[in-house]
Structures are given as C-alpha cells and as structure tokens.
C-alpha cells in the first residue's frame, strides 16, 4: 500500500513537472563581447541573444545589465535596460550595445539578468541569468597605439634624422664638381680665345 501511494505521488509530481515545462516559456540568454581587443576609449560591442526554447511565448521580457559601472564605462550607443513585450516560442531576439571603457586594466564581464512572464497566467516573474563573457584585459590607448598605429610620424622623424648623412656628402661633391666645371669652362674659353 505504501509503495503504491508513493508511486502515485511520484507520478503526480512527474506529470505536474512535465505539464509545467510544456506550458511555460523558457528563455536562454547569451551575452557576448564581440571584440578582438579591449582598448581604452574604443568601442566594445556587447551582444545579447535571447532564445525562447519553451512552448509558449514569453511576455514582458526585461533585460537588465548592471555589469558596467558608470565610473568605468560610458555608453556609446544602445541601452543596457530594455524590454521586449513578447518573444514567441522558438524565436530569438538580439540586442546590441556599444560601450567604451574609460580606464584600462583587468575587468570581469559579468552576467546580465532577464526577468519574464513564463506563461499568460503566471503571477511571479521568472528570472534567468545570461552567460558570462568572463574576465578580459582592457589595454590602454597608448599601448594599443604603440602596437597597431602606422607610426607615420615616427618614420618621418627617422627620415629627417637620416637626411644629413645622405645629403651632406652629396652637397660636398656637388659643390666641388660645379667648381671644377667652372674652372674647366674658363680654361676652354681661354684656349678658344687664344
């Protein structure tokens, strides 16, 4: 008798679980930093993708990312707190924000939080946490410039500095040559006069 009772309870729990998982929206959220390099005062592109893998639409989806403190980051374009009224079942939405770091150093890119209504009659909001991009090192602009800029000014300065070594001997030779030619010319004129 006891075993039958427990079996029924387990079965009931299973059915309620399956029913609840069938009738609710389930959101998977990914947060990606789409950068080759993280550079101070330059764009960092953050992409959020929300997939609804549930069977019903998710409504009132609120995405909040408080992982970029105002003293360290400025928003170039885009919003870090947004809302999608409805994400249909099986659909995905993407959202992009461009920010720029104001300082350099190690930074931990943490997860964003999504809250949504998992079904039409759900009273409590469902919370989801996005994937974490993890730790990254933001290099200073001076360091980036040293490595990747074309260094045109530096090369120009080098050319100016090496110019005397080339031009000075040439000028000496040119002066002596023109002097010699002048003497030669005068001699020829003398000979022709005579």
């Amino acid at each position, binding site marked *: 008798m006891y075993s039958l009772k427990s079996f029924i309870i387990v079965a009931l729990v299973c059915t309620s679980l399956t029913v609840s998982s069938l009738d609710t929206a389930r959101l998977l959220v990914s947060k990606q930093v*789409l950068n080759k390099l993280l550079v101070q005062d330059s764009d960092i592109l953050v992409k959020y993708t929300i997939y609804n893998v549930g069977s019903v639409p998710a409504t009132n989806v609120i995405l909040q990312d408080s992982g970029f403190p105002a003293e360290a980051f400025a928003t170039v374009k885009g919003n870090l707190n947004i809302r999608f009224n409805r994400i249909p079942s099986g659909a995905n939405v*993407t959202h*992009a924000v461009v920010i720029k770091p104001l300082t350099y150093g190690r930074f931990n890119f943490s997860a964003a939080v999504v809250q949504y209504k998992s079904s039409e009659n759900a009273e409590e909001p469902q919370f989801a946490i996005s994937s974490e991009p993890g730790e990254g090192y933001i290099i200073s602009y001076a360091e980036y410039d040293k490595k990747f800029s074309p260094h045109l000014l530096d090369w120009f300065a080098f050319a100016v500095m090496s110019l005397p070594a080339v031009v000075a001997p040439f000028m000496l030779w040119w002066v002596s040559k023109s002097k010699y030619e002048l003497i030669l010319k005068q001699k020829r004129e003398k000979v022709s006069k005579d």
Partner: protein
Amino acid sequence: MIGPCHCAVVALSLYAMVSAAAGCKYSVDSYTTTDAMIVTEAAFIAQVSVAECEDPPSNLYAEVEGKLVVAANAGPNKYQVSWLDDFKKARRGDYNVKLYDEAGYGQLRKLLRDGESISGVTPVHSAYVRYSGAYRGVWVNSEFLAAIVSLVVLYFAYTFKSKIVS
C-alpha cells in the same frame, strides 16, 4: 478571392497606420561600429524616439533589406533597433530602416510568408542608417614603405656613383 471581412481588416490596419503616422514624430539616432581592428562584427544601432504621440505603438518592428528586426523598448517612447552583420558582408552606404507598428508587422509577415512583394505596406516611418565601411588597418605597412624608400635611395646613389667612377 478577397472577402469583405479581409477588406475591412486591411482598411482598419491602413487607417491605424495612417493615424499613427500622422500623429507621431519619429526621430532616429544611429551608430555603427567600423573599427575592424578592434571589433569582430559590424553592429548597426538605431535609437528611435517618438514624440508628440497620443497613442505610441506598444511594439515597434523594423525591416532592413528583407530582414525583420524586433525593436526593444528602451523606456517611454524610446525604442532600439539593432542588428549585426559580418564586416565582409556589410555593404558600405545607407541602409533603409523601415519601422512598422503591430498591424503593419502582421501584414508584412503574412506577405513574406506568401512570398509576395512587401512594397504595398506603408511603414510608420523610414530612416537611413549610414555605414561608412570598416577600417582594417593601413594598406601598406609603414616599415615596408620605409624599406622601399631606402632601397630606392640606395639604388640612385649607386648608379650615380658608378657613373662618376666610369
């Protein structure tokens, strides 16, 4: 065959669009990532704000070059449309972003599903997002250029010298 009911729906949605277009003023502020040295993808972000609107659209959708994008609500009367593209695929120039409200989006999806032309659906607003092209670094390395220049100087110096000596 088009039934009277269908006509009414179309008329109603058209009316809704016209009234929305007449009442609201849309302004679009856009940004694109262009530094391919730092960022891996071209991001297009258009921030839409609606003003002087009695009944602002609860949802806003956008159509860009055949792609449908759901706009995110970013506060009262503010929306954000964003999409990403590969730097290699992204074309330089102006991208026409057509904004639709719920009714227009419904029509649009139906027409796209049936494989018909979507030019008949009037957007509530349309704007251009300019993409100036990706910067992938300098064409010629400056070290390489400096080496070429010094070789040219060396060549001239040698030919000159051999001329003088002979």
